[in-house]
Every structure is written in structure tokens, then in C-alpha cells.
């Protein structure tokens, strides 16, 4: 949606302002917005603290953003850290760094280099993750491609194509490698309750139940029960306590 408020908001240095409706918002430095913000595009180089919801076609954050309420965006790109108290809805989310949403995330396509956290659930058509996730309830994605680094958690995972592989730290970005080792890097793994899908490939995953049409349980897995419709394969030492064809 293109808004024609006719006014832009440009902040350099530190400013505390009211929110409002703008065409283009640029923050170079640090800004505290007292209320909700609606705009066509929002660019943050530095820090933004917004005490209300944010609704923008395009959001690009280089640095930190904190939003007291929910975010609705066309494209959301963050290089740094984003913390959203409410829910987040976007067509496209790109995270280089960290995105933490206290409630739900709903998106078309999500690409993460780093981490993505949701206090409730996550719905997406397509997800490509290099890093870690922490989704408290259901991660629902048509296509999930996940290269695991460090520890991840999802209450449940459901979708069509689910591919979870153990990340190779050797090929990983130097900066994030440093960050992880500074936190006492632990073996990469995903802990999930139930994983259900059509085609499932898992590595380094611990889950109670895995159900699907075609299931491959690979290296580093520990699964209590696999129920499969068509094919099931265990490889490279993946552990499955019980498997059933249904």
C-alpha cells in the first residue's frame, strides 16, 4: 500500500518524536518513537525504539530495532537485532543476525542467517535457515530448508518438504562462528516434539514422533517413533526406537 502523506521523517543523531503516517522514514543514529508508525519505507542505521505498531511496505534495519507492538511489512530486512513484542506479518523476511518475535510470525518467504525466535508459532510458505530457531509452538511451512547451528527448538514442525541438516561450521561466516564459540558453542541439534510432513530428511534432530510419506533419518538423530506411508530409510547412525508403516 502506498501512502501519500506527503511528508518524510528524517532523523540524524538522537531524537524522540511522535509516530505517525509518513512516506519515507530514515533514521541515522538513534530514535525513540512515542507511538505507532505507518510508512512506505523505513530505513534504520543505528537504533530505533518504537512504542507502538509498525506498518510499512519496506523495512530495512542496520543495527537494532525494538517494537512495542506488532509489525506488518511487505519486505522486512534486518542486519543486526530485531525485537518485536507483538506479532509479525510480512511477505518477505530476511534476517542477518537475530529476529525475536514474542508472539506469532506469519510470512511468505523467510531467509535467515543467524537466528529466528517466536514465542508462539510460525507460518511460512518457504523457509531457508542457516543458524538456529526457537519456535515455541508450531512451525508450519510448505518448504523448510534448515542448516542447523547450535541448539534449536520447535514445539512441532509441519509441512510438505522438510530438510534439516547439520551445519558445517567450517564453511560458516567468521563473525557468527566467533559469536557462537564465545557463547560456549555446543553441538548443533534440533529438539522437536512432533514432525509431520510429506518428504522429510533429518540430521541431528531429536524428536518424539516423525510422520510422513517418505522419511529419511540421518546422522545424529534420535527419534522415538517413525510412522511412514511410503518409504523409510535410516542412515549414518541415525537412531530410531520404533518404526511403523501405516
Amino acid at each position: 500500500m502506498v501512502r501519500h502523506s506527503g511528508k518524510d521523517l528524517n532523523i540524524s543523531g538522537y531524537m524522540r518524536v511522535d509516530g505517525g503516517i509518513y512516506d519515507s522514514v530514515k533514521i541515522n543514529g538513534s530514535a525513540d518513537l512515542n507511538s505507532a508508525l505507518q510508512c512506505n519505507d523505513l530505513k534504520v542505521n543505528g537504533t530505533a525504539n518504537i512504542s507502538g505498531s509498525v506498518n510499512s511496505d519496506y523495512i530495512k534495519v542496520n543495527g537494532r530495532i525494538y517494537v512495542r507492538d506488532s509489525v506488518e511489512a511487505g519486505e522486512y530486512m534486518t542486519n543486526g537485532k530485531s525485537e518485536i513484542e507483538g506479532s509479525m506479518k510480512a511477505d518477505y523476511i530476511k534476517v542477518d543476525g537475530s529476529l525475536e518475535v514474542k508472539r506469532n510470525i506469519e510470512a511468505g518467504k523467510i531467509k535467515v542467517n543467524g537466528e529466528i525466535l517466536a514465542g508462539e508459532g510460525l507460518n511460512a510458505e518457504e523457509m531457508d535457515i542457516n543458524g538456529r530457531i526457537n519456535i515455541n509452538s508450531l512451525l508450519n511451512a510448505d518448504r523448510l530448508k534448515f542448516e542447523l547451528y547450535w541448539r534449536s527448538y520447535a514445539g512441532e514442525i509441519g509441512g510438505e518438504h522438510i530438510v534439516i541438516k547439520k551445519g558445517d561450521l567450517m564453511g560458516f561466516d567468521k563473525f557468527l562462528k566467533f559469536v557462537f564459540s564465545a557463547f560456549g558453542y555446543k553441538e548443533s541439534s534440533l529438539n522437536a516434539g512432533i514432525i509431520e510432513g510429506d518428504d522429510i530428511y533429518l540430521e541431528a534432530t531429536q524428536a518424539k514422533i516423525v510422520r510422513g510419506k517418505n522419511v529419511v533419518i540421518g546422522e545424529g538423530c534420535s527419534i522415538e517413533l517413525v510412522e511412514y506411508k511410503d518409504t523409510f530409510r535410516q542412515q549414518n547412525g541415525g537412531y530410531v526406537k520404533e518404526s511403523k508403516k501405516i
Partner: protein
Amino acid sequence: MEEELISKKELLEATNISYGQLYRWKRKKLIPVEWFIRKSAVTGQETFFPKDKILARIEKIKNMKDDASLNDLADVFSPAVKAVNSEKQDLTARGIISKAVMEIIGEKYGQKEQLGFREVLYAYSIEKALSSGDIGRDEAKFLLETLDENFPKLEGKACKAYVLRKMGTTTCCLIQDGLEIYFDSGVKTAACLNLATLMEELKTKL
């Protein structure tokens, strides 16, 4: 009245759909979140659904999904009122609303040419009840009053309209789905209209 439940596993088997499809339709809100019921079972937490409702819904989605996008389908199944006006002439010509019912509508809403979605829904509801012979013309007017006055209060919630008779007197009411109601033995349910279902039907016709 306990609704019969079906497990997710049984459902997939019965309808021949895959996990991927079920999750996608859940994500696109083609299946209401409330229908996913978590219960403890031998293997831990399992998901169940109200059997009749989910089977009917999945059949509909399967039948419609080739002709409409999933987003279009989400509109059809949502409890939200469609923001569309219909021409009275068009409705009678296509057999959606009979002339008799259109007269009753005319008495209430005046001689305007167009009807808002809600008004068409009320007309459609009365049409169903009248044409099945369940209610008479006066009762239809009464039902229209009840809908007109009270349906907006239940906006967005699934509900049923009841026409009840006792000792020769008729009364109407709107009851939100999911509530259990018990009438005294002297009451006869002349008609019970599922407004959510009627709304869906209507949305596909308009």
C-alpha cells in the same frame, strides 16, 4: 451433544490427502484453528477434529481448489461478511431468491435495487426455510426481523438461527455455535438454519 471426533491419521487416510496439504490449508485458514483439538492419547498428544465438519470441509476444498486459488477459498470459508452488493433482479433471475421472498425483503428494506451481502444472506436464509415448507410467511417475516436485529451482534462468529413453536406461538433466536441449548418438551424446532454454511453457499453463488 458430544460431537464425534476423528484423529488426524484417520482423517488423512479417509480423505486421501497428505500432511503437506493439511498443514497448508491450516496455514491458509481454510480449516479453522478451533477444529484442531489436542487430546492425550497413548502416544502422547494427538490431534483430533470434529468428524462431520472436517470431512465436509475437506471435500469442499478438494472440489473447489482446482478452480479457485487457496486465498479465494479462504474468503469463502471465513466468517466475515463479503463486501459485495447484489442486484435484486439478478438474484431472482438466477433462482437464488424467489419472488415471494423478494417481496418480504422489499417490505422490510424498501424498493432499492441493490442489496448488501447481509441482506442477501437473510433473504437466502428465509428462502431455505420457506421453500422447505418448514415455516410460513409470517414466521419468515419474524425470522427476518430477528436476523436483521441480531446477526450483526454475532458478526464473525458461527451461529444458527432457530424458529421455535410452542402452543401455536412462534419465536426466533440466534444461538452461537458450540453452545448447548435445551428446550422444554413442549417446544418444537420448526427450522434450524446453519448461518455459516448458508454464508459459504451464498459466497460461492455470488
